[in-house]
């Protein structure tokens, strides 16, 4: 049983997020902006993992492709047009995902996890070793894209507040888009595939095509996150495609409880929060993070979004017919 956060809570959260830049705290604004980017990344993976049942351990590849794309497509000391580089980067990452999907979706289960990881590693090497990337040092996005259309500049991405609201708007857009898709006949097929792929096939669904579409879509949405990341930080390295990155985003999805878009967003915030807090305790914060993860898996199989449900069920005194 999924826990649906009621609309009022979602709007309240949105309002709180919208107020962040108004506080004037530059450090926190950038931190939350980065977290919002990760939230988009997490939602894109949730489409695959939580809704379609495809555990991809190489999702960072599409994040990185888009990030490198915007850096490479932007002139060195001039602003590229946002209305070109955004669709171009996202389209590119979707295309790469489509291509990779043709290979990896021939496998299932453990194999799938491994080959998605391997393809991400291949992408890593492409950006690390070939002229497509800038080697292990990475490349800079010196000038952020401009939003100018025919002389009119609706917003300025160099302005921290504008950039923040742009990211927030993208988050809302991705959330709305995914929500809609998941309610569509296409989305129901994906959920059916996760529940019982064999039965879907015997009912006449050529599941490979649906999975491929989901894979490409998730790649493109992950690309939106990668694009935004490059714009926020102005700097891209091969580390963006590393398996640590793939593992982190998977962790976010699981922490938030899979199959739940709000959960994915919450997972991103939880992960970033933990990272920040642990880093203040010790330089070896990954030790704490790792221990928390191990403990969470051993003792908390539903992820955090399942906690409200579990509390509710124990208050009601047992299972119910929903």
């Amino acid at each position, binding site marked *: 049983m999924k826990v649906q956060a009621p609309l009022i809570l979602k709007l309240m959260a949105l309002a709180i997020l919208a107020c962040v830049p108004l506080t004037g705290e530059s450090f926190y604004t950038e931190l939350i902006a980065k977290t919002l980017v990760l939230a988009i990344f997490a939602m894109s993976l949730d489409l695959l993992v939580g809704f379609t049942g495809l555990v991809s351990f190489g999702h960072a590849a599409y994040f990185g492709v888009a990030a490198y794309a915007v850096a490479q497509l932007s002139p060195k000391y001039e602003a590229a047009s946002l209305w070109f580089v955004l669709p171009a980067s996202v389209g590119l990452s979707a295309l790469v995902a489509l291509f990779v999907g043709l290979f990896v979706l021939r496998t299932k289960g453990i194999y799938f996890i491994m080959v998605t990881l391997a393809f991400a590693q291949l992408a890593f090497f492409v950006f690390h070793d070939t002229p497509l990337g800038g080697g292990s040092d990475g490349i800079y996005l010196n000038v952020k894209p401009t939003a100018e259309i025919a002389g009119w500049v609706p917003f300025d991405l160099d302005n921290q507040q504008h950039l923040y609201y742009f990211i927030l708007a993208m988050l809302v857009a991705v959330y709305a888009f995914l929500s*809609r*898709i998941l*309610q*569509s*006949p*296409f*989305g*129901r*097929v994906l959920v*059916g595939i996760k*529940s*019982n792929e*064999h*039965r*879907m*096939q*015997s*009912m*006449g*669904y*050529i*599941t490979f*095509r*649906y999975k491929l*579409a989901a894979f490409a879509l998730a790649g493109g949405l992950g690309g939106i996150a990668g694009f935004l990341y490059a714009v926020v930080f102005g700097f891209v390295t091969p580390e963006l495609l590393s398996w640590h990155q793939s593992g982190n985003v998977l962790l976010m999805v699981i922490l938030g409880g899979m199959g739940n878009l709000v959960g994915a967003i919450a997972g991103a915030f939880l992960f970033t929060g933990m990272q920040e807090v642990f880093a203040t305790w010790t330089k070896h914060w990954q030790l704490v993070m790792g221990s928390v993860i191990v403990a969470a898996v051993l003792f908390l199989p539903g992820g955090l979004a399942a906690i409200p449900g579990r509390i509710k069920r124990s208050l009601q005194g047992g299972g119910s*017919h*929903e």
Partner: protein
Amino acid sequence: MSDVNNEALLVAHKITRHFGGLVANQDVCVNLIRGKVHVLLGPNGAGKSTCINMLSGDLPPSDGKILFKGKDITGLTAAQRSLVGIGRSYQRTNIFPKFTVLENVRLAAQSRKQQAWRIFSKAQEQQWALDKARACIEEAGLGKKVDWVSGVLSHGEQRQLEIAMVLATDAEVMLLDEPLAGMGSEESAKMVEVLKRLKPTRAILLVEHDMDAVFAVADTITVMVNGQVLESGPPAQIKASVAVQQAYLGTEDSFHV
């Protein structure tokens, strides 16, 4: 008129299946005719599951041909066969346990009009699929439990759900794997009535153990033993057959009707 009634919809010609050294099916021939119920019978291990799996596309044959309305479909996958008009229900529970009965069948119905690109339309507003699903659920006798989560249904009710799902895919050939399993005598009788009602426009293959039900509804019975067809013919012939009685001697199944 008789031409239509004798239309052979699904023909399996000498289908064979090996698993390494084990021969699960050898030169099996099955003819499924519109308006007729064909029952596949045999003791455990006779190869009935393998046979139905080959017909539904869940298992490719090692040898032999399968024809649907005259066209060779041996190479088609299960999904492709479903789209052509061959539907299958399963012996072991193979539904979507967390979805409601309605959603299970709606998904089955939706498969007939997969307009996947319409990503902004809402599944729950596709009235044609919902109406069709409700109709099939009624026909399978599960009308009272339309909004129940399918995972909590009884075993017999899940068999009914399976039938509803196959109906919703407009299957002209229905391959039903032990649809009466786990049902009490009253439920069985109801299901037999459903099958009789479905019969006229479809070709039905039944794999079944329940002898009473079998003889109540079968037009043809094929008995399999050790992967091969022992005998095939009308129920009276099979009932009287000495070879069939002997085949069942010494097995756990009994062949007393």
